[in-house]
């Protein structure tokens, strides 16, 4: 079986000319279906940049980045949009829409799927919120939820569309120990149930035990641990 994420000899730099700042150097990594990979490394080592390239949010020009059998190097906007639609993204901040309720926020991830009726979307979103333990908080706006609850809503949002890959950028960074642990436990459980691949960037050594594999990115170079 071919890996869902296959990166070969990826180079990426910010700036141009004399000011060129290399961020990723010859990065090569393969992630199989259903694998949970944690990526650690000091600040500024290029973890977030790497994640945004995989997620189709940032354009890279050198090397090869195949995600779900689509080449993202020098890709068109259409390819990137189609990759984004198949990926669940969990951000460092919860990044919920503050004018929408938890339920509406989660169902936003389903609005791009035309096959579903509005009722099916809401049912599916409610089911997902139940799964992250927020069944009682469906109609709360983000302001009315705690930081941990918000992050769980955003986990629900990332998973509700049954994505093949979940990319998470320091999901526990803004949480205390307990709610951070809760959040990743839920993420791990749901991912295992649905055979979802997870690439999670973290500083947080408390959650390393959930990983199938831990890699370290330092100064743009990747090292398996």
């Amino acid at each position: 079986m071919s890996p869902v994420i296959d990166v070969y000899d990826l180079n990426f730099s910010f700036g141009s000319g004399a000011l060129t700042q290399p961020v990723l150097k010859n990065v090569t990594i393969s992630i199989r279906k259903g694998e949970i990979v944690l990526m650690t490394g000091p600040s500024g080592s290029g973890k977030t940049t790497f994640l945004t390239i995989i997620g189709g949010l940032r354009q890279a020009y050198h090397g090869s980045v195949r995600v779900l059998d689509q080449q993202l190097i020098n890709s068109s906007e259409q390819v990137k949009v189609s990759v984004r639609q198949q990926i669940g993204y969990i951000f460092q901040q919860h990044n919920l829409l503050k004018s929408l309720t938890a339920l509406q926020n989660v169902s936003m991830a389903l609005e791009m799927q035309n096959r579903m009726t509005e009722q099916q979307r809401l049912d599916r979103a409610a089911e997902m919120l139940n799964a992250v333990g927020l069944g009682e908080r469906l109609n709360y706006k983000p302001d009315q939820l705690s930081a941990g609850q918000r992050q769980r809503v955003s986990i629900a949002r990332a998973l509700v569309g049954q994505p093949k890959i979940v990319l998470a950028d320091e999901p526990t960074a803004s949480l205390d120990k307990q709610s951070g642990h809760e959040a990743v436990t839920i993420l791990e459980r749901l991912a295992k149930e649905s055979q979802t691949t997870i690439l999670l960037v973290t500083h947080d050594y408390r959650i390393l035990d959930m990983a199938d594999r831990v890699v370290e990115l330092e100064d743009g170079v990747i090292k398996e641990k």
Partner: protein
Amino acid sequence: MNLVAWVYFPARLAWRQLIFDRTKLIAATCGVLFACVLVFMQQGFRDALYASAASAPVKLHGDLFLMHKQSEAMWRPIRFKRSELMRALGNPAVTEVYPLYLGLAPFKNIETRGKRTLMVYGFDPDSLIFDIEEIKNKRTALRLKDTVLFDEYSRPEFGPMRQLLEAGRRVTEVNDYKITVVGLFRLGVSFAADGNIVTSDLNFMRIFPDRSLNDIDLGVIKLYPDTSIKQVQAELSSQLNEFVNIFTYEELLQNEKNYWANMAPIGFIFGFGTVMGLVVGLVIVYQILFTDITNHRNEFATLKAMGYEHGYFIRVVFASAFFLAILGFIPGYLFSLGLYHLAESQIFMPMPMTFAKAMTVFLFILSMCMTAGFLAIHKLKAANPADMF
């Protein structure tokens, strides 16, 4: 993608974001409302101007009208010789011709003794050139020396004429000449004159001693029934001197309206006022949409990272603009309706709220909001997920 979802989902998001922040929504609505009221008032005044400009000719009863070619409008006519009008009688289709004399003169308020200018109409009381019942009924009284009829719809500054007449106080001065008010009629004020009086041609000459019966301002021509007005008009234009214009009734009205719309700076002023109202509204709406996008930049970038396309956000912005147009227009319409009534009762200008006017203003406001949306969408580029996370 099906069209309903294509419009509905972004519109729903726009709506939810709008109603989330009530304070800002109210401020935004007020901005549109302000522009709306401004445009409504400018349009209302302009239409009132045209309507009242034509109020005097509307009541004239005739088939063809002679005016000097150099006369721009009825309120500032260039005089021509009565003999020119009489020559029209040479046409076999013409039954009667009557001159009309016009002049602006100060009228002394019976109570306060203050003077204010109004329009004096002089006509042959044997003719029926005014289509106003009260004037027809009072023709005998007008044949007497120094009698006038007063327009009840004149501005109140001329005095409460009805009460004064009932109290027997009917003597005053026009152009420093003593006259007696023998009755009232209803015509209406215009931008040219704050009031009107009607008198006989002979009395007119007494009020204006420097005028002569041979120099007329407007000629009214009546034709035998069942004759083609257009044909007689064409015949007359070859028979009469070329310094007169021969208007049909509609052409006379149109000529008056055109004067106020194009020749007088006043038509331009209202047009300019409308444009300024829209520009102010545009800037307000643009500012609101722009800050809205800036505030939601993070959320839009998040949605983009989830796979939403750029077009979706453009539709969100336009939907917001559309909602603001609707939300501002409805109270703006109601508020303007009140102001129209106020204007009608206070300044005696006809200001009807027609469906066509409401529709025109709505289209103005809608295009204003859409233009603002169009200008604001460039800010969407700032919502780039790669730069946000």
